């Protein structure tokens, strides 16, 4: 079985394509609502707070604080079993949105709640995925 082909890569849609194109270009993009100022990670057609549809794309400074993290030993899919143990973190970005990503191996030993981290990118089967990295 070719486990690589089972990697659950993101399938960009009309609303998320700009986000994933941004990742490919080394940029972490997020939406903000022109009406109420709300920022949101998961791109969509309207604002999650006021349902306004005038949404702007912004570029994040890619610095945030670890809200929580876990080291996963029991992976849900074969492709991740090869990587286990791996670390997943929730990061509150300085701009106010929250992100989930894996923690880079070099950062894993020092990750803790409240740590300041930077979001970088890792190439996975031709797609750039955000990744949590240590701040130098």
């Amino acid at each position, binding site marked *: 079985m070719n486990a690589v082909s089972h*990697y*659950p890569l993101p399938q960009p849609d009309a609303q998320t394509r700009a986000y994933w194109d941004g990742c490919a270009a080394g940029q972490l993009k997020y939406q903000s609502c022109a009406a109420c100022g709300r920022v949101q990670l*998961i791109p969509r057609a309207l604002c999650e707070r006021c349902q306004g549809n005038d949404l702007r794309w912004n570029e994040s400074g890619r610095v945030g604080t670890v809200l929580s993290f876990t*080291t996963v030993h*029991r*992976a849900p899919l074969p492709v991740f079993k090869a990587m286990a143990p791996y670390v*997943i973190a929730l990061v509150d970005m300085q701009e106010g949105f929250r992100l*989930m990503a894996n923690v880079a191996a070099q950062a894993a030993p020092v990750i803790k709640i409240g740590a300041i981290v930077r979001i970088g990118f890792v190439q996975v089967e031709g797609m750039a*995925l955000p990744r949590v990295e240590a701040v130098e």
Partner: protein
Amino acid sequence: MSMNAFITGAYDTAVGELPGSSCMALHAEAAMGAVSDAGLRLSDIDGVLCAYSFTQPHLMLASVFCEYLGIHPGTCFAIQAGGASACIMIMQAAALVASGQCRHVLVVTGDNRLTGMSRNGAVAALSEVGHPQFERPFGISVPAAYALVAQRYMHEYGVTPEQLAAIAVEHRRHAGRHPKAHMRAPLSVEQVLASKPIADPLHMLDCCLISDGGAALVVSSRAAARDTHGQAVEILGAGQGHTHEHIVVAPSLVDYGCKTSSATAFARAGVQASDIDVAQIYDSFTITLAVELESIGFFPRGQAGAAAAAGELGLGGTLPCNTHGGLLSYGHSGAAGGMFHAIEAVHQLRGDARERQVRDARLAFVHGDGGILSAHCSLVLGA
């Protein structure tokens, strides 16, 4: 106050490893058992609600079930809200009978998740609750998502792995008193902590079981309940709370929809948390129960694990909780997992829980949680 709805029949199948079982056969056994328990005939049933299945997934599971059983009710549909499904089905059945749309509604759940698919298959299927673009590419699983909750909760309130383990230990003690429970061998805190790490800080024994099994209830209107022969249990209050689906979007990692759902259910029933004699609360992981107990208000912040360690969730404790052993030790068969909690509440209120019986149990609280503490439904039931 009253919701004008009564649980008039209840039945659950054997639970655990049931070779030769199937999703629909478990549904049918549970349904026939519940109808019989109510003293009704199948032809009295005019509404059927089903949930979902991993081993026999279908767009119209309730229609598939009615066809399988050979019945043609006037109302028939499926409800999917993960672990909240059972409570939401009961709440919806109550609305159907109270509004006069139905007289006797059968709510049926069941799945052969253990023998009907591989353990890997079940874990993979469950991981699909993760967001396909913003969570699943990072290897999220249901345990990993709850581990993120646990890690934050332990950080904020100083809760220890030993305290979470005490929850699993008490559940196993409860299960030891139930002859049908999937796992009955006594457990120690040390065993929980020494079990395989799944996603830190959760160990395998912090996680629910995967079981085969089915469970069903009959919900009847006040007038229709007079046709039944079992001991009816009244649905006094019900409420729901929904804050998110994906953990990355959860507005809080310590307060969840159970706060709203329970407050609504208590208000509707005209009771308070402190009035509850016995609680059956969704326990997909030890952390799930800890967070719910505190968010609902049964224990102060950060105290549920310590309370468990002190025996407060035990049979003689301040809040006997999951007296059948819960998802952690009694069994977890998909939507039936949540239904087992409701069935146990019926046993407690009927006073036929044998050595598990909470003395003078008059008021029971039942709670379901779907997703990653995403969808919540609470019920208050009265003898």
